[in-house]
């Protein structure tokens, strides 16, 4: 059963000049798959990921999530979908700097509103422990090191038990020890909780250890 599917996705950047970034991209990601997208800078891999993540809605073609067409859904619905089903990890960890680690992890859960505050807090501490960040829960987010922030971002991505985690160079800013760490966390989640993962990366070591490598070049999937 496919979790994510695209049909003939085309994406153009119009500014400063017309640029055809994605050309008829069609691909499918199965439930429980751990895939990486690789390719040279500017080949469109991040662009594709943003479209798949529903954050970029300015494209042509069809995007399916759980076999449901989500192209042209309202921003409100897409926000709900992201909140519930998609966890996102960025290269620059992107935490809310003024809030504590725990609050950062809790916010998407509180926004979802399916559990009480106490339950969300319990879950958040659970996820932080899983990433060995339980000790830092009450620290302010801007007091953490880069590797720690990245782990908090992963914990945040996990808080609503999503169907998929998407990463945009999640290890791009980390040293090899920390990127190993992140990879192992992803792998464990994939194996123990059957979580799907889709990671854009430059790191060939990282990519080679995933189930499937999607290679992109010049706006197309080439292998």
């Amino acid at each position, binding site marked *: 059963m496919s979790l994510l599917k695209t049909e003939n996705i085309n994406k153009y950047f119009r500014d400063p000049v017309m640029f055809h970034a994605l050309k008829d991209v069609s691909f499918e990601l199965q439930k429980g798959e751990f895939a990486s997208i690789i390719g040279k800078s500017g080949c469109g891999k991040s662009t594709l990921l943003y479209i798949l993540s529903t954050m970029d809605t300015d494209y042509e073609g069809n995007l399916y999530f759980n076999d449901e067409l989500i192209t042209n859904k309202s921003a*409100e619905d897409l926000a709900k979908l992201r909140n519930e089903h998609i966890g996102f990890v960025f290269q620059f960890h992107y935490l809310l700097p003024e809030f504590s680690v725990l609050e950062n992890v809790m916010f998407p859960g509180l926004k979802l509103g399916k559990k009480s505050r106490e339950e969300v807090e319990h879950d958040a501490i659970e996820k932080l422990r899983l990433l060995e960040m339980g000790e830092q829960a009450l620290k302010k987010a801007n007091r953490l090191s880069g590797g720690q922030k990245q782990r908090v971002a992963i914990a945040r991505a996990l808080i609503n038990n999503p169907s998929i985690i998407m990463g945009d160079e999640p290890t791009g800013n980390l040293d090899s020890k920390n990127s190993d760490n992140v990879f192992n966390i992803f792998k464990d989640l994939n194996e123990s909780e059957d979580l799907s993962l889709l990671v854009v990366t430059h790191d060939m070591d990282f990519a080679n250890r995933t189930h499937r490598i999607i290679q992109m070049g010049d706006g197309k999937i080439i292998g």
Partner: protein
Amino acid sequence: MNDFSLIFKITRTHLLSRKKQTSIAALGVTFGIGTFIIMMSFMTGLNGLLDGLILNRTPHIQIYNEIEPSEVQPIEMALPEQIHFVQSIKPVTNAAKIYNALPLMEELKRDKRVKGVTSQLSAKIFYAAGAIDLNGIATGIDIEEESRLYNISNYIPNGDYTGLIKEKNSIILGAGITKKLSLRIGDKIQLKNPQGGIFPMKIVAIYQSGLAEVDNMQSYVSRGTAQRLMGVGNNYITNINVKLNDVNQAPAFAKEMTRRFDVNAVDINTANAQFDTGTSIRNLITYAVSVTLLVVAGFGIYNILNMFIYEKMDDIAILKATGFSAGDVSKIFISQAILIGFFGGLLGLIFGFIVSWIISNTPFNTEALPTVDTYPINFNPGYYIFGMIFAMVSTFLAGYLPSRKAKKIDPVEIIRGK
């Protein structure tokens, strides 16, 4: 936990974790609203004082007999068909007297539109000062009515003006004469009338209008005393002053008087046309200044809040990426703006009130206004209400416009920009 309290928590943390920016933004509102209140209170206070100065002491309608030659000469009545040349026409004597003044006053007092009627007559006199006599005017008035209707007591800083009723042959003497003749309250002064009669008077109070040429001439006596000084009967009255309940009816009422009683009746607008112009220009300046203040304050508020929100673009991207909707994001920023507007505005009201209060207690001594000793301030609650509404509306707009942009933006546009 519902959406509202989650949004409020984010709002509060944003505001509290950046205390410096928050307080600068709030202070921008505070000073804008504070100066607006101070300016309005002070300027309208001063305008009110100046208006009151003229309006309170000026009758709404003055009735008198104009001294002028008769329009129709007897020969015209006798020989209406003929052409005649009459030269050097003079006014008739005793024309200053209003005929049937007392019944006329009774009639006026019965009118529902009338608040009060006073009568006056002015006697030319001399103040005896040793070898020289000083020119002067003694106006006969009904002091109680004058003080009720025209606040004459404001211009009597020293002495007890009711002495005019209590004691016969008493006088309220002009401040200039008092000084020239080195007199004090309780002293006696001799008045001479043009016929040479001498009248000793007791000084019961000092009159000070602030205008030197008036204070050097003018004194007040009771109406009976003035009639004795002139040697006329008790129905001799030269001026009747009317105060209406509604000053706006004055022109119409004056016209009616002229028609009904065949007298000259002048309304306040005609008598004080220049003053009217002055008032409307002062009001215009007041409103121009306050609108300018509000526009400047409004732009300041918008500017500060705009920066406040643009600094938080990263947070917008994160919140949206993790599932907060566009509406949530704009609610966060609008509620921040409104909170800043509310507390900044509240402080502005307090700030404006305190400064206004200090001004209203600042000594302001001037010869022209003997009873005013501090600066006038108009503590009109309307300015405070308007100031608060303006603070809320302008901060709402200042939060709404950037938040609308934040709402529209795709989170990737911010992330990609890194």
